[in-house]
């Protein structure tokens, strides 16, 4: 049960969130040296990639029919379908947005597949405009009769609505000129594994776990979306979005666990074995965890943990209207320094590591944006209406979050420079306590480690923290290099060393 205020805050990422499956990723801990190393997805050798290409090509003949949905609705066909539907409109204006989804989702636990799915869906949203009102209807069929009924229903709704003081008319065709060239293509959609191939990848993760008596769990998901938008001004947009998640948890006989997660747009870019090895290595290191007392500690937060905190910083307050209404911790802070000078956050739909869609469900072009620059609030999320009212550019919502990092610094460097501290590889169940501070609480999970004199000396039992996001992101001692990470958005995030992280209670595991 979430309040609408929280819902509105979450809207910052919701449009993209529904395309991205909840995940965080963690890094490997080598059992022998107990040092943490960072995944470098770019480090995959050409040989490895070439081998993968052969494997994919080989299994392509076995692909199940889920691929058909993508092939059935190509750009030209969708343009034709939307164009025909728009002609049925009796309203002043009409907008139609559609999304076609195909997904394979395989889940495993206890060294066996436990859930295995092929899912397919269509979403069509019709927005009929009359005067300064908009009526919306959604359906999931291109059946011509159903589509016409839905258009009529949206026209009935628009007729009974009161005038909307925050109405904005549909965009002009000229918006098309602003679209960035998407980095995702039909190739990302078509490179997908058969269920037999997915099973093979899972078995490759299980085998080394069995050797040490551990259990392999996790999931493989490949969600593929084709999206199109058209309005009665002739504006048309079309694009592809592919999101693959390979999530691994290894559980040792004593219940200690290690976690790793990789994400990619194209399955050829995913290193399955490396990820499963990371999870196993970390699970082994997580054994024999000791207790520590609650209190304030210097912590090294993995990119996955930082990703969660950055996301909550955005959920909590970057909506310009909320700020102006006094409902955000960033009210009156536009242009002011709020965070540490080392923090810079941008978004870029064409980032090659975490590409995103280049238009939204009203046909607006997503652009590259700076949100936080050297700790200063550079931009807030202005909707089209709020931008018009305040004579500003509509900045929309971020489609990804790119945090400035330092390619010369590894997470190992952060550890070796820490006299007393804690390495947190994953945070779990974070929630706001007071969004106006904004304070949050949450737990550590799947591998938390004690650092003494620059080395990991032990695993520690899981802890609960309560802290302020502003305080955390104003207490950055050092930033490392970045990797793709993300629970809701696909982000590009570094590990960070933070002072005085506030643990308030512990667990028995």
């Amino acid at each position, binding site marked *: 049960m979430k309040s609408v205020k929280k819902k509105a805050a979450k809207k910052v990422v919701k449009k993209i969130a529904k395309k991205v*499956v909840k995940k965080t990723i963690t890094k490997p801990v080598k059992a022998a040296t107990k040092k943490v190393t960072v995944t470098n997805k770019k480090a995959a050798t050409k040989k490895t990639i070439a081998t993968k290409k052969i494997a994919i090509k080989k299994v392509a003949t076995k692909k*199940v029919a889920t691929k058909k949905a993508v092939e059935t609705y190509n750009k030209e066909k969708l343009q034709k379908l939307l164009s025909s539907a728009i002609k049925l409109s009796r309203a002043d204006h009409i907008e139609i947005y559609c999304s076609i989804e195909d997904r394979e989702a395989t*889940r495993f636990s206890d060294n*066996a597949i436990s859930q295995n799915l092929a899912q397919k869906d*269509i979403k069509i949203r019709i927005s009929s405009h009359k005067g300064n009102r908009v009526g*919306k209807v959604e359906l999931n*069929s291109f059946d011509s009769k159903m589509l016409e009924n839905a258009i009529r229903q949206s026209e009935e709704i628009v007729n009974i609505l009161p005038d909307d003081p925050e109405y904005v008319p549909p965009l002009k065709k000229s918006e098309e000129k602003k679209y960035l060239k998407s980095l995702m293509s039909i190739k990302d959609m078509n490179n997908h594994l058969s269920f*037999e191939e997915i*099973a093979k990848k899972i078995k490759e993760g299980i085998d080394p776990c069995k050797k040490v008596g551990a*259990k392999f769990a996790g999931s493989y998901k490949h969600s593929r979306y084709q999206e199109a938008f058209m309005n009665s001004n002739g504006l048309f947009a079309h694009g592809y979005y592919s999101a693959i998640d390979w999530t691994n948890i290894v559980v040792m006989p004593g219940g200690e666990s290690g976690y790793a997660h990789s994400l990619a747009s194209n399955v050829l870019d995913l290193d399955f074995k490396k990820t499963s090895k990371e999870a196993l290595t970390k699970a082994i290191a997580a054994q024999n965890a000791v207790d520590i007392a609650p209190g304030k500690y210097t912590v090294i937060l993995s990119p996955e943990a930082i990703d969660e905190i950055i996301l909550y910083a955005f959920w909590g307050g970057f909506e310009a209207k909320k700020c102006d209404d006094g409902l955000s911790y960033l009210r009156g802070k536009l242009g002011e320094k709020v965070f540490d000078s080392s923090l810079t956050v941008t978004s870029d739909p064409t980032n090659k590591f975490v590409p995103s869609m280049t238009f939204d469900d009203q046909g607006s072009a997503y652009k590259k944006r700076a949100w936080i620059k050297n700790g200063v609030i550079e931009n807030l999320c202005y909707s089209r209406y709020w931008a018009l009212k305040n004579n500003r550019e509509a900045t929309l919502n971020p489609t990804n979050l790119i945090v400035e990092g330092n390619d010369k610094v590894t997470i190992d460097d952060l550890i070796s420079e820490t006299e007393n501290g804690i390495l947190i590889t994953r945070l779990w169940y974070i929630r706001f306590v007071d969004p106006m501070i904004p304070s949050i609480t949450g737990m550590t999970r799947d591998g938390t480690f004690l650092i003494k004199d620059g080395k990991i000396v032990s695993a520690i039992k899981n802890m609960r923290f309560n802290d302020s996001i502003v305080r955390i992101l104003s207490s950055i001692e050092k930033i490392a290099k970045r990797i793709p990470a993300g629970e809701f958005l696909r982000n590009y995030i570094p590990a960070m060393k933070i002072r005085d992280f506030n643990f308030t209670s512990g667990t028995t595991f």
Partner: protein
Amino acid sequence: MRDLCLHAMNEAERQKVEYADIRIINSREQKLITENERVYEVKDNFDQGFGVRVLLNGAWGFASSPIITKDEISRVVKIAVAIAKASAKIKNKSVSIVKNPAITDSFKTIVKIDPFSIPIKDKFDFMFEINKKMLKVNKIKKVYSIANYENVDKYFANIFGSRIQSNITTSMFEYVACAVDEHTSRERSHGIYPQTIGYEAVLESDLLEKCEKVASEAVMKLSAHKGIEGVKDLVLDPTHLALTIHESVGHATELDRALGMEESLSGRTFATVDKLNKLIYGSPIINFVADLTLENGLATNGYDDDGTKGKRWHIVKDGIFSGYSTSIDTAAEIGMSESNGRCNADSWFSIPIVRIPNLSLMPGKDNLSLDDLISGVDDGIYIEGMGSFSIDQMRENFQFGGDVFWEIKNGKIGRMLDNVTYQAITKDFWNSCDAIAGEKYWVKSGVANCGKGDPMQTAKMTHGASPARFRNIKIGGGNV
């Protein structure tokens, strides 16, 4: 629908599956939100499709499609079979299921007024009336009213011969008042708890009557006393307890978690199978009852998506852990002769998984009142409504906030407190409960957006309770 279902089962039988079922679903959802005196959102959503699940070679396969035709069903059955064959290559042992008897039945929510028969304009007029009243309260800057009406028509068939039709209507209405001053903002919410019921729930509610009080309390929160911490007694209102029950009992007693099947996302549970009928979960006055027949319950659907008829059972009896939420395969895994029947998918698109049922803390037997509970507290806090919530992946260490907090001193309610949090370990917390108010004070609340599974699915369930008292709880961990 019946012909399509039969066609699916015939196709599955031809593939020599051990088990198969199909759900064909047509649904409509209407979402209305007003922000101050404007329509923030109006959306009518029509959705249809089917999902096929097969068990073959001791492994599951599932596929779904929005196109409801015989040809598409044939295609999707073949995909589900192919997926099951792939699943079977990575298994420890064959999945077994408890076999439900073949049932032909139907179930329909009792609805006096179909929410979709009420003109949208009338619904908005009511919402605007509430918003206007709340906006008259000084310092109320923003108000939202949120209404959601849903109807799900489902036809279920399985290979054992069950043919079950259900038609479930859900109504929800909530409003939020946001107060703003020069320092901060605070919000307070109220609503009819979501129920399987018609629009009569809105018409017969106290929504209009209470809205100004709710807005006034939002304003009071701006100047409520801050920074409370220490070890204190708690008296928790049913509107608050619903979420505590949900997180620390509901999720902890899902059998798929206990069997490790949620390892990769939601996690496991401390309530493992070896502790069934042994673990002291709470004090002897604690009884948690799962009831899938509960009147107007959000999980009262007649049957679950395994085709198991809704029933009533104890999760905790006289303080002892005594039951799980189950599915036909998890029940078989621990040797149960039948499932308790709480395996549901959130749409035709999704595979059924074990969910929290309607789960309630039963009233105390001593006919105590809320005042009786409060009068027994020297130094404590009375908490109403839901707020911040967080719990670890074993469902042990939790921290909760709330919506409104009242100080209790020497047995009497005093000043309002700001943003209190309490933290405890699940078993310790329920064992610290020394009093539960009587049946007269027992009310239903609920959760309409419970998230679980991977891919994530939502579910709805009711949680009833009477006010309850807890001794020596750690307060204020969330103060920073």
